[in-house]
């Protein structure tokens, strides 16, 4: 099913790039022009906003808002996830002039909407610029792209990463829990000797790999105000790629396709012992490997240098206001309530397992409790700390769907030994540059 979703995404994106070409001629926004943010005046009279997302049970959250705000009613629409079709629909709707007021956009997709000039700049809204300090620094940077005075969305959730590991097996085999990547590699040998794999290397979760690179201080994309730069094989990335290549070469990690029953089974049958994953991964393990309940624990992500405190991020999204919205002020007001108020964050966490992007969100009562599946460890404390350790300067490119596909094609070859991870990343960089050029997005080589 993953394959089908992916081919549909590619199909949609290819129709997209056609529309992209035709509309980007006079479009200098691709470069992130600086200038005054749009005005943000409140509308007079009652307003109805439309909001498209794929969060399950979002209706329950929006109902709370609608009851309290009779003058700003929000109509919510849900559908497939972003790459499953909703992003393509947003682009089509922007072109046809019937886009919703607000949309759910993941951080890695936000630049593609910015490049197409589809997002309202909320930098001119006082209520938005005053909220900056409520959000964890790096999430704010994901929605401003580092441009002072401009805001292109309200951070919603985050995916700080940590190490999920089988506490029982590590203890039984006297393997210390790794705190550095070097220790992790040593542990991998011991786990192999004990008859397991330390983890499964994902051949298709390029955003997870990006999380590793993010932690190591790499930068895949940059924008100097005019030109994009692509550096998917910089020194930090090279270090990460070589490291995992080493584990793959020594057959210390398995390479089952992720998110398949086979992959669940590797965890359920105790053949895979750890997973370096995001906060939302806690649910993936507990539902995919029910037999291992109570045997897991969470530790901070292994570090490149002993004593460092750096974490990566995998996933996370924002609530953006589209440029075509006639009510940016009201839309921003709703988006702020949705993503900062304790009542909304509590509901979003309860109904959809979202991990908030705000500083205060980390202390929601539900995120302070011990989790039975993890031996009653209050695991979210680990992620709360990790969230503060994510570097703020990682930028996504404007064509991530294509970049992910290209990199993952190479990764698939790498796990079968036909090429290396580094080569796959270099190839992905080259084809990303080609894609940017074909969409008339200025790029510096």
């Amino acid at each position, binding site marked *: 099913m993953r394959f089908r*979703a992916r081919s549909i995404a590619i199909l949609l994106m290819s129709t997209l790039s056609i529309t992209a070409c035709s509309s980007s001629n006079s479009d200098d926004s691709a470069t992130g022009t600086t200038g005054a943010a749009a005005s943000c005046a409140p509308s007079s009279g009652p307003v109805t906003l439309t909001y498209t997302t794929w969060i*399950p049970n979002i*209706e329950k959250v929006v109902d709370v808002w609608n009851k309290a705000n009779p003058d700003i009613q929000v109509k919510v629409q849900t*559908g497939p996830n972003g790459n499953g079709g909703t992003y393509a*629909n947003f682009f089509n709707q922007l072109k046809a002039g*019937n886009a919703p007021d607000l949309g759910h956009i993941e951080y890695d997709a936000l630049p593609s909407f910015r490049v197409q000039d589809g997002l309202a700049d909320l930098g001119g809204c006082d209520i938005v610029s005053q909220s900056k300090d409520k959000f964890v620094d790096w999430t704010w940077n994901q929605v401003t792209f580092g441009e002072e005075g401009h805001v292109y969305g309200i951070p919603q959730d985050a995916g700080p990463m940590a190490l999920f590991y089988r506490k029982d097996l590590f203890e039984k085999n006297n393997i210390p829990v790794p705190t550095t990547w070097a220790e992790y590699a040593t542990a991998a040998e011991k786990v192999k000797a004990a008859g397991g794999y330390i983890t499964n290397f994902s051949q298709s979760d390029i955003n997870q790999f990006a999380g590793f690179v993010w932690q190591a201080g790499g930068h895949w994309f940059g924008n100097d105000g005019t030109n994009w730069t692509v550096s998917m094989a910089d020194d930090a990335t090279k270090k990460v790629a070589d490291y995992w290549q080493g584990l793959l070469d020594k057959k210390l990690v398995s390479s089952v396709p992720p998110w398949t029953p086979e992959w669940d089974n590797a965890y359920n049958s105790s053949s895979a012992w750890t997973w370096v994953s995001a906060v*939302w991964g806690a649910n993936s393990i507990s539902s995919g490997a029910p037999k291992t309940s109570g045997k897991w624990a969470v530790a901070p992500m292994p570090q490149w240098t002993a004593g460092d405190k750096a974490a990566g991020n995998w996933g996370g999204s924002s609530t953006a206001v589209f440029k075509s919205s006639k009510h940016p002020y009201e839309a921003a007001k709703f988006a702020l309530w949705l993503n900062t108020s304790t009542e909304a964050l509590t509901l979003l966490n309860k109904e959809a397992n979202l991990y908030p992007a705000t500083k205060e969100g980390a202390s929601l009562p539900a995120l302070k409790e011990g989790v039975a599946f993890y031996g009653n460890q209050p695991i979210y404390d680990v992620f709360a700390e990790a969230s503060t350790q994510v570097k703020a300067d990682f930028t996504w490119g404007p064509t991530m769907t294509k970049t992910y596909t290209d990199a993952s094609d190479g990764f698939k070859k790498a796990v079968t030994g036909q090429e290396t991870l580094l080569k796959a990343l270099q190839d992905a960089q080259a084809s990303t540059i080609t894609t940017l050029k074909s969409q008339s997005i200025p790029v510096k080589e």
Partner: protein
Amino acid sequence: MAAFKLPKYAAMLVMAVFTLYFLTPLWWLFIASGKKDGQVTEGHALLPDNFALGENLSDLFRYNDGIFLRWMANSIAYTVGAAAIGTLLAGMCGYALAKYVFRGRELLFNIVLGGVLVPATALALPLFLMFSKVSLANTFWAVFLPSLVNPFGVYLGRIYAAASVPDELMEAARIDGSSEVRTFFTLSVRLMAPAFVTIFLFHFVAVWNNFMLPLIMLGNERLFPVTLGLYSWNTQVNQHPELRALVLVGAFVSLAPMVIAFLSLQRFWRSGLGAGSIK
């Protein structure tokens, strides 16, 4: 006689193997949709194990205020409505092309045939932009109206009309004073009945499986057909694993209308295919 029996058994064996081949995935789906919490890797893959189909069904029908039942109703409305009207249109068009000689007949027919070659997927985006212009995107009509058109049905209609409606009979009807429209509805429709069933079934399947058009046209979950609804759940299984059980049992339930349509109409269909093959 013994010499003839062997090939018959062999043929039966081949059929049995193929039947097994086609039914196994369905059986797997049945077993998987009964697994508790969608744990498809738990227990035996092809034997009922942890069987909780009833529980899964009630979860499915209750989830999000019974949105699944709404999707099923939508699918049936899109499919039966479009297939019924589309069949009538295609049948009439095919009949006209077969039975009346007029200038440009072949050109018209070839253009319609050309329509068979254009994949519906390629038309979805242009249709979306057109429907947006008239403010009909994201409505029931956005999916229903484009689904009425069925060039392959026109082709079938023409072939069947040529084969099953004799010119002599139409001539007799004319002499008796029947108008052309009346002749069509009272005489030709009956002669072409097997063809209509065939076109209806083809159209039914095509609309039921049409995925791209609703994906692009619809943003409102309450208008989704069941295919799109299940797909949208399935895109979220990674982060919301509780949806997996619903996707499996939902896929199983969504087969029912198709099975019913085929079982109840296959008798007509067979005779329709037969009638088309003689000429």
